[in-house]
């Protein structure tokens, strides 16, 4: 269970980016976080695994307080938090397998890491997961030879290799074409239930958020102004979150063509 209490983040002396957020995520629910650019979505996610230092507040994962961890304790906590990035953040010059195994860096020792002597069960798990998302045949290809959607699958598998207790996805589909981004959303949704893993997804695409997640959290200017089921996320909520700005996807009632893409991931 992930619980955020009164989270505040301020860069320097400017106005806080996050102004006292509270959020509780339990079980294997998929939560999408929507909001305009600069609303604090990315900052919130990065506060959880401390890529960004929170100014104050509390974040607990399965009872462990994350905000004040240092050094080795922080690394131990981080390996239980998987993260998927907008730009994939792969090690381009290394192979797909090396990228995937990098998810185990928190578990193996330095010698194993440098000499690539990972335990056999890690390698088995890597092949299993790569098989699951359909990239196993790329194991020995360089990561930069793959297409965008395939690269993001590598990113997802790398995060899952950590055997995480929670998965964070920061705009995982924003660099992908519409069809590929649907596939990645389907993948995240189904993996969450298969591995009974809570997933937090920052997303711009409101239509996708409504289709693939079971709970929507709306941020505006660092405050949570919506928290509820996709069905409750109506035009008013959208206007409130984007401040009457034209919604990024036009008509929010338009559902993406989910039916055909659902099959690809299975």
């Amino acid at each position, binding site marked *: 269970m992930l619980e955020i209490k009164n989270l505040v983040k301020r860069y320097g002396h400017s106005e806080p980016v996050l102004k006292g957020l509270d959020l509780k995520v339990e079980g294997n629910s998929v939560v999408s976080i929507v909001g305009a650019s600069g609303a604090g979505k990315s900052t919130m996610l990065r506060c959880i*695994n401390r*890529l960004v230092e929170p100014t104050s507040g509390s974040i607990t994962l399965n009872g462990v307080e994350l905000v004040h961890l240092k050094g080795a304790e922080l*690394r*131990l*906590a*981080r*390996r*239980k*938090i998987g*993260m998927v*990035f907008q*730009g994939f*953040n*792969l*090690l*381009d*010059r*290394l192979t797909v397998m*090396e990228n995937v195994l*990098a*998810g*185990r*860096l*928190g578990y193996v020792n*330095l010698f194993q*890491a*440098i000499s690539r002597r990972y335990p056999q069960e890690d390698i088995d798990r890597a092949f299993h997961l790569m098989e699951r998302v359909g990239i196993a045949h790329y194991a020995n290809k360089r990561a930069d030879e793959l297409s965008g959607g395939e690269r993001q699958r590598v*990113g997802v598998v*790398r995060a899952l290799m*950590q055997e995480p207790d929670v998965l964070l996805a920061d705009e995982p589909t924003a660099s992908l074409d519409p069809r590929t981004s649907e596939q990645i959303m389907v993948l995240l949704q189904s993996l969450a239930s298969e591995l009974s893993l809570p997933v937090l997804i920052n997303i711009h695409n409101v239509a996708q958020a409504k289709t693939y997640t079971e709970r929507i959290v709306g941020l505006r200017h660092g405050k949570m102004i919506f928290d509820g089921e996709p069905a409750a996320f109506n035009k008013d909520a959208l206007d409130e979150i984007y401040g009457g700005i034209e919604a990024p996807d036009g008509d929010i009632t338009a559902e993406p063509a989910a039916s055909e893409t659902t099959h690809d991931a299975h």
Partner: protein
Amino acid sequence: MVDHAEQLADRVWQRFDRKERLIRYAVLLATLMLVVWALSDIDIFWPWVWDAPNQISGLAARMWPPSPAGFANIVSALLETVHIATLATFLTIFLALPVAYIAAQNTTPNRACLWLGRFILVSSRSVNTIIWALLFVAIFGPGVLAGILAIVFRSIGFIGKLMGEAIEEIDRRPVEAMEATGASKAKVIAYAIVPQVMPAFFAIVILRWDINIRESTVLGLVGAGGIGVILQGAIDTFAWPTVATILLAIIVLVLIGEALTSVLRRKVL
């Protein structure tokens, strides 16, 4: 319409206005004055300058034909020169990489390390190899060791600075991703930084090896080993045909080094 066309034809265009032109003339004048001052201030004994063509033809006549005597000596001295360059480059790698690491803005542990790293790089680069060689000949006595250390100390600045810049130019996002997996600092370096700077590393080391071969040919002039030692000896004994052979041998060596490194560099990049 006709009026309009006439108006356009009357327009005057100048690249520089009056003030800009004045500045340009002033800069030109200042440069000329600097040159005149420098020429009048240094002591050039002009009769020797006018005599130079005679001296050149005289020297060429004494050098020709290059003497094949002692060719085996020259070859082994050349090999020694290459060995100095290779060993020095190899040793430099181990000393320069830690310095590059602390001298790069994005990897340095703290500000004190950053300035220490930059100080090492600047002091290494601001002292010429020959000066380093003079220093080490004074410490270790004449010989190959002084030559190797001289080249090492000059190369640390070169490889360290360029590698530091390569580290500063890496994509930060993979670093962030590795930190997010719970990897330690050393593992983040091994996975996210090292692969990104590998191509630059090989290119820089090969380039420096090439430069070091050239630099080690002159080390012997101050007694620090290599081909320069026998070149100095030949000049001191007025053995001009031997001098000619040595100079030709150096040119051939540098050309071979140049060809070899350009092939290697193409393989790496």
